[in-house]
């Protein structure tokens, strides 16, 4: 694990969020993530993992707390502005536009990002270099892609924005074990290009294999943070189902 940098790539402070008039689902989460690391977020069903990334991406109303990307406060920004500030997000499963072609999906990923540095033809070359199978089929409807190809297109679309930090919501969902392996390899490649990755996963083993660090979320709060290797040794079952005060 790299030494802690002065400015966290991604930071959440006492974050609280929920749906409509309902109760808080994210209940006071604080996280700081060093640049160019992979942080796995794990926890039982309904612990608020997905809600946490949605909150960071701006899709869920923040009720209290603060979100910052490389030190820049984006708490009050729209989802679109957060992308422009360097925070990209790949949602779970429904993460490409099925009725647009691959080419259109890729074009759309950058054409509304006014003011984002490093977005352009070179970035496109680099990203398509990471996912060669995508660049070869620009005219294909995204809805016709297989699960693995769809996931690669989703990663590529997010990376075209040249993000500082990338939020991944259960990239393994709905994929066969072999494709899960390829997806995890892709995540490592992404990190090697200098991107910080926050990885929410149900598939704990796969996530801990690629992550540097991990946090366990229970009932909308962080119950444990440790290095990935320590986490592998921990009794996660007991942690997941422990009663929270």
């Amino acid at each position, binding site marked *: 694990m790299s030494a802690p940098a002065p400015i966290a790539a991604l930071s959440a402070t006492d974050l609280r969020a929920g*749906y409509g008039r*309902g109760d808080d*689902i994210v209940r006071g989460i604080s996280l700081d993530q060093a640049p160019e690391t992979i942080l796995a977020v794990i926890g039982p069903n*309904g612990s608020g993992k997905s*809600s946490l990334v949605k909150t960071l991406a701006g899709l869920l109303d923040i009720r209290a707390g603060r979100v910052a990307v490389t030190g820049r406060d984006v708490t009050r920004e729209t989802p679109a502005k957060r992308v422009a500030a360097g925070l990209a997000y790949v949602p779970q499963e429904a993460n490409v536009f099925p009725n647009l072609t691959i080419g259109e999906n890729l074009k759309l990923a950058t054409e509304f990002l006014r003011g984002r540095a490093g977005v352009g033809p070179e970035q496109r070359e680099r990203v398509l270099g990471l996912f060669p199978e995508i660049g070869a089929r620009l005219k294909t409807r995204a809805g016709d892609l297989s699960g693995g190809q769809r996931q690669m297109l989703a990663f590529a679309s997010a990376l075209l924005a040249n993000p500082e930090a990338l939020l991944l919501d259960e990239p393994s969902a709905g994929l066969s074990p072999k494709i899960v392996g390829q997806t995890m390899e892709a995540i490592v490649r992404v990190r090697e290009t200098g991107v910080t990755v926050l990885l929410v996963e149900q598939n704990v083993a796969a996530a801990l294999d690629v992550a540097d660090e991990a946090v366990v979320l229970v009932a909308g709060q962080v119950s444990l943070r440790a290095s990935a290797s320590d986490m592998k040794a921990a009794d996660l079952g007991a942690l997941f189902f422990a009663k929270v005060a």
Partner: protein
Amino acid sequence: MIAYLVTIAILVCVAALVGLALNLQWGQAGLVNFGVVGFVAIGAYAAALLTPQVGWLPAMIAAGALSAALSAGLALLSIRLEENYLAIVTLGFGEVVRLVILNEGWLTNGALGIPDIPRPFASLGESIGGDAVFIVFALGLLAIVFLALEGMARSPFGRALRAIRDDATVTSALGKNVFLLRVKAFAVGGAVMGVAGALHAYYLTYIDPSQFTPIVTAYAFMAVIAGGRGSNVGLLVGAGSIMALLEGTRFLKDVIPVIDGVQLSALRLGLIGAGIVLLLILRPQGLVPEPKRRAADVLPKAGGGR
């Protein structure tokens, strides 16, 4: 002045009946009905045509029954549809009813309408005063319907309807027949709209197609929104305040003399439209909010959450 207040009170009764019916369909069961006016018109014409033959009570029952039957029929065909589609089907039904009334002159006398509809208790009215008897009749009818619908709202049927509105998937998973419950809600609502139409016909003693425009539907929606979706008490408050507002605008003619009749009616209709939007924005829960009764109260195992 008294006569004027009596008129308003009777119009409020008619509007409240229509509103109560829509409140069952939309407020409690979550089913949009943009064809309200069609069911009111059917009730009015049924009452107008049958009363001279069979007397008011059988005619009124027939009006409710016919409206309920057509409502159930339309529901059987279309209640499975998602709300945007249900809205257009019911709107279309309302238009078809208008066309039939307009074009089947042998039955409905077309655009000329039907005059001299006998009122219930007409002979009693001659000795005491027609409108005095009629308002007692109208209020009595409203009270009966109100109590019946309130009882229904508190019954397992009413609870199941609200449970479906809040979460159809969970409710059907718990063994409720969502389809049948929705058809029933539509049928009962249709019956009440038919009875409201009959009351309308009896009060005016003359009906023609121009009385049954989509505005009737808009009034009903405004009453439900103003009253708070799901609350029958709120509905009465809502219907009352709308009539007061509408009738109040009649006086605008005296205040702003340049306005002519068409402009006045345009102003009132425009206000209804603006009122619908404003109330939706400002008072999402209506004047009298529905008591908090959620699916979880009805169906203990429906809880859970995200």
